[in-house]
């Protein structure tokens, strides 16, 4: 098609596609990936002992190697999380009650506080690594379908799918309106005119989204929609999924064993 910029021979996704991972994990059945990510996240969120947390983090690191993401990209994505965790390191050791290691007058750094901060840091990094490698590498539409296989309420799955589909359309609409404001000399300042104009912009976006949703609903009705989505694609488990399932199951078992050993 002689379109605008896009090329008909381009059958795969454009390079700007954010989730363009091609590692082994990306080829695993999405349902398995979602299930493994949820189970690992739950177990890691509940874990308190360092052996389990370190094992979980190491496993997450290994997952990065098999995800095709690249270590640098993975670390970059962990940065914002650890910026928040840094704040916690500044607060928790001082504010947790317990036996002080070092005391400065009335203030002291408590051993319990340091331990807690370490636990939270390990936990958060491990969980994010797993979600990033297993779920973050998935097209959101695939995630939507995988969720509907898990009996996630249809409405939620639909909302996810529609959000994915129309986020870009709304973004374009916003940018068009914003550009139209700009060419008429609008520059945001700290004054009433700015607030009012931005209010109009937000309002106009809402109204347009509402209109669009009505047109979409009409178009769906024209094609016989009656509240039920039928999935064209069925996921299929294959032999390639077996190593992943095995490793994930072993890791889960090991994490749980670590925690039980700690409690005994």
């Amino acid at each position, binding site marked *: 098609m002689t*379109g605008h910029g896009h090329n008909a021979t381009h059958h795969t996704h454009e390079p700007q596609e954010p989730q363009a991972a091609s590692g082994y994990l990306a080829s695993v059945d999405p349902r398995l990936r979602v299930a493994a990510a949820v189970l690992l996240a739950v177990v890691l969120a509940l874990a308190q002992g360092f052996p389990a947390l370190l094992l979980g983090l190491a496993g997450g690191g290994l997952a990065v190697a098999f995800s095709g993401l690249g270590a640098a990209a993975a670390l970059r994505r962990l940065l914002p999380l650890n910026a928040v965790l840094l704040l916690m390191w500044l607060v928790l050791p001082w504010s947790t009650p317990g036996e002080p290691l070092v005391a400065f007058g009335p203030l002291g750094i408590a051993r319990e506080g340091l331990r807690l901060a370490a636990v939270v840091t390990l936990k958060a990094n491990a969980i994010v690594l797993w979600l990033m490698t297993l779920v973050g590498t998935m097209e959101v539409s695939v995630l939507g379908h995988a969720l509907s296989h898990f009996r996630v309420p249809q409405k939620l799955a639909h909302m996810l799918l529609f959000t994915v589909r129309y986020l*870009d359309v709304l973004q374009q609409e916003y940018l068009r309106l914003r550009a139209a404001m700009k060419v008429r000399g609008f520059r945001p300042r700290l004054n009433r005119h700015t607030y009012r104009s931005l209010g109009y912009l937000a309002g106009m976006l809402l109204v347009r989204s509402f209109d*669009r949703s009505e047109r979409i609903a009409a178009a769906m009705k024209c094609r016989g929609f*009656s509240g039920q989505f*039928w999935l*064209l694609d069925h996921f299929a488990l294959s032999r390639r999924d077996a190593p992943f399932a095995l490793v994930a199951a072993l890791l889960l078992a090991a994490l749980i064993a670590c925690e039980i050993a700690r409690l005994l």
Partner: protein
Amino acid sequence: MPEMLLRLTDVHFGYGPQRPVLSGCGFALAPGERVALLGANGSGKTTLLHLIVGLLKPVSGQIEAFGRLRTVEADFHEVRRRVGLLFQDADDQLFCPTVAEDLAFGPLNLGRPRGEVRQIVAARLAELGLSGYEQRITHKLSGGEKRLVALAAVLAMDPEVLLLDEPVNALDDAATARLVEIVNRLPQAMVIVSHDREFLQQTTNATLRLCDGRLIGLPRLASPVACPPDRSGDSDARPQ
């Protein structure tokens, strides 16, 4: 007279009492007919198409489709299956993530088995020269591609009548030429709304103009640009 696919009789419609849009529209569509529907911006062309498939209900007047009077929502379920409406903005129509899923949406709603749906999808894409587009992401297609995929999605329902709302709006010359070629290959009777005279000349064989809420049959595209001053109660126009 041959049996008409669609027949509108004295249809009135307005968005609230202050804004009457159609005041006594009538027309009939015969098999094989390709009607160009002209009219000024806001004259009610899209409204008319939406009335035909029951997305809007007339204030008064009758809508017949395939020999039966259609009044309530349930009547229009069958009409929507047999009359395919192509929306003005393809983004309104393409809401599934991938092209294949979007084409499959209609047939799956009609309860067709998956194997058959896959065949329909492949066949429609092939007919429009879009083979290989199955897994493309709909919102990343170009404007022309979106229009063609939306048309393929309508054709996947196997309609007997097509209503095309500004099909070449915002398409470049090459995309328009491609659409002309495709439309001329399709067997369905059609109503085409467009402001592109050249496109209408190449694709239609009859002309209607919407003037002040009424339909007027015109000799083939030899119409004056403005509405005729004299509106002589022609409330059941036949395209000429």
